[in-house]
């Protein structure tokens, strides 16, 4: 590592986002009876991860774009490569910032302190493991390690979702766990078949070897992988599990799930489409899937009466935008999709956090029970309003820029399915505006309605302390995320620059492949092994 120390810095940082949270998870588990020590450890660990990820993004973007190490110093074909390129580091930065903010929020809410009835404080270790799993999935350079990353984050998410084990959460958790297990098994089958066809699971090597495989076999592998990732990303025909399971969890848990878990699926789809199966065998299929996801999702949202469920449906709907960008397969489309993922992670998480604040303040998230919140708590109203119009894509905000980028890319492609998709995108955007306006009108603006569907409120709301003061510790992280969401608009130029370069790297593919294959074989054994 002599002489080129500057160039090698990202390689040193690479394992940090995975190793540090795992290590901290072990520590917090050992210190289960000391809540204050737990808090200090997890906040410190995640803060360091944020710093490391930002450093990695800057260095990767300034440097040659891709860095790889082979874990344990094995030759690259045998070992597990960790790869950081512009796409994965950008995802890491956004996800780590969001993870940290949600952790701070949940500390103030007291989910972490075992108020939900857990015997030992299991929240911190699980949350850290979730963060490690997400990072592992983003950094993984081979299919099987990607599977392991998915399993780490899913296992943690099962526990977070059923925290406390109340009836509603067990019911919601069951659906979620069984569906997720099924998707993992589909993914595992795909890995077995990929190995049988090519003899490797290394993504870089696969990108070369898969081209020699019979096209029909390629198609089968491609579709199997897409089905597996599609369930995780909640793409339309495979998305029915999401609105049933997310809303019952505690607010911060739903927020982090909404922000991150589906995006890991989207990330995997982007990788598969660009690295493993370039040339868009499935692009027309993906286009129709994207259109259906956008429209069906948003129509579901419009029909909802509960803010959490409504937001879950908008989450499904907006996954469609990202798939749209991937399906176009052009640099502009991919760039738009990458930008949109970054924007959507922040905004969707913020909205769920604000809904958590509303639930705590008013005791319910049902639109029938809420009313005139804007008069009673103007701060909450502002906190909801900004990310809401951001999600709907009102001009000055990043949601608008992301959507315009995607629509522009669609118009540039100019084939009729692409134009239909553009129209669908505009329609979805308008319906999103309608959905959030409905929430705004009924929860924040109008007087509460007299008649309240009691069963509905009892079935969905899980709030305990009605009318208590909202703790500052919950408001500050939420405000910070709202500000981050607005800041994305301010730095949209540089961010689009990064996502453009990321898209070009993805379409080119050779820097990724070359770096990974060289990374382990030439010098990995001597410098990374120790």
């Amino acid at each position, binding site marked *: 590592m002599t002489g080129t120390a500057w160039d090698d810095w990202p390689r040193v940082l690479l394992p940090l986002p995975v190793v540090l949270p795992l290590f901290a998870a072990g520590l917090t588990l050992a210190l289960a009876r000391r809540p204050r020590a737990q808090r200090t450890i997890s906040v410190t660990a995640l803060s360091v991860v944020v710093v490391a990820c930002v450093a990695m993004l800057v260095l990767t973007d300034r440097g040659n774009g891709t860095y790889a190490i082979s874990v344990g110093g094995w030759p690259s074909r*045998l070992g597990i490569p960790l790869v950081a390129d512009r796409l994965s580091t950008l995802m890491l930065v956004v996800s780590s910032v969001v993870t940290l903010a949600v952790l701070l929020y949940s500390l103030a809410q007291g989910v972490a302190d075992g108020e939900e009835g857990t015997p030992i404080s299991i929240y911190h270790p699980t949350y850290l493991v979730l963060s490690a799993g997400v990072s592992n999935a983003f950094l993984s350079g081979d299919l*099987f390690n990607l599977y*392991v990353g998915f*399993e780490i984050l899913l*296992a943690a998410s*099962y*526990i977070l979702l*059923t925290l406390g*084990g109340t*009836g*509603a959460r*067990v*019911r919601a*958790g*069951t*659906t979620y*766990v*069984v569906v997720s*297990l*099924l998707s*993992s*098994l589909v993914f*595992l*089958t795909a*890995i*077995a*078949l990929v*190995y*049988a066809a090519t*003899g490797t*699971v290394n993504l870089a090597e696969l990108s070369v070897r898969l081209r020699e495989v019979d096209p029909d076999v390629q198609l089968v592998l491609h579709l199997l992988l897409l089905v597996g990732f599609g369930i995780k990303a909640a793409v339309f025909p495979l998305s029915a599990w999401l*609105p*049933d399971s997310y809303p019952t969890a505690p607010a911060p848990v739903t927020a982090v799930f909404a922000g991150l878990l589906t995006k890991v699926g989207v990330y995997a789809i982007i990788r598969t489409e660009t690295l493993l199966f370039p040339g868009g065998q499935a692009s027309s299929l993906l286009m129709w899937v994207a259109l259906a996801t956008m429209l069906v999702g948003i129509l579901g949202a*419009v*029909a*909802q*009466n509960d803010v959490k*469920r409504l937001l879950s449906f908008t989450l499904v709907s907006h996954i469609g935008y990202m798939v749209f960008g991937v399906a176009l397969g052009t640099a502009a489309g991919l760039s738009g999709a990458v930008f949109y993922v970054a924007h959507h992670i922040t905004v969707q998480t913020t909205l769920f956090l604000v809904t958590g604040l509303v639930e705590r303040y008013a005791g319910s998230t049902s639109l*029938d029970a809420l009313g005139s919140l804007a008069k009673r708590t103007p701060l909450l109203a502002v906190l909801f309003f900004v990310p809401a119009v951001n999600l709907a894509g009102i001009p000055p905000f990043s949601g608008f820029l992301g959507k315009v980028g995607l629509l522009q890319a669609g118009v540039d492609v100019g084939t009729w399915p692409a134009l239909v998709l553009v129209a669908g995108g505009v329609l979805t955007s308008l319906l999103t505006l309608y959905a959030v306006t*409905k929430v705004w009108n009924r929860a924040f603006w109008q007087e509460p309605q007299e*008649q309240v*569907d009691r*069963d*509905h409120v009892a*079935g*969905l709301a899980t709030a305990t302390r009605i009318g208590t003061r909202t703790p500052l510790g919950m408001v500050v992280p939420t405000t910070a995320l709202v500000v981050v969401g607005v800041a994305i608009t301010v730095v949209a130029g540089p961010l689009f620059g990064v996502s453009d370069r990321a898209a070009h790297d993805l379409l080119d593919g050779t820097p990724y492949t070359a770096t990974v294959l060289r990374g382990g074989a030439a010098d990995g054994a001597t410098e990374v092994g120790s």
Partner: protein
Amino acid sequence: MSPNLTLVVIAGVLVACGVTLLLERTLTRVIVGIVLLSNGINVLFLVASGRPGQAPFVTGGTTAEQMSDPLPQAMVLTAIVITLGMVAFVLALAYRSWQIDGHDEVQDDVEDRRIVRRAERDETSASYDDDTRETSDEEGEGVSR
């Protein structure tokens, strides 16, 4: 190389049984389904790893070509460990469900039940704006609340 037919058949039968059980309403059967399904996929990995080889260390003179491929076996091992953990978790979930409800059937979603109730009472959704009410008041009575 042609794959071992016995292994392929075993994998197929295990997966078929697993899928059938996964479609059951009882969580216990779902668990058995998951176990069968994942075992079927593990057998698939064995098919993927190619022909069986000789022991690498014991017989001394085994060359690399004579050994079986170790990589899929490492993957299967990881997959088995992961599935074990997940099955343990779902078992706990089934037990908790039995503790709370007295059975471990997967229940319908809150929303689904609400829709069914509304349908039984012949009611429209609350977000449905009935703007015909003023013009045809008498007819509207029967449908809306």
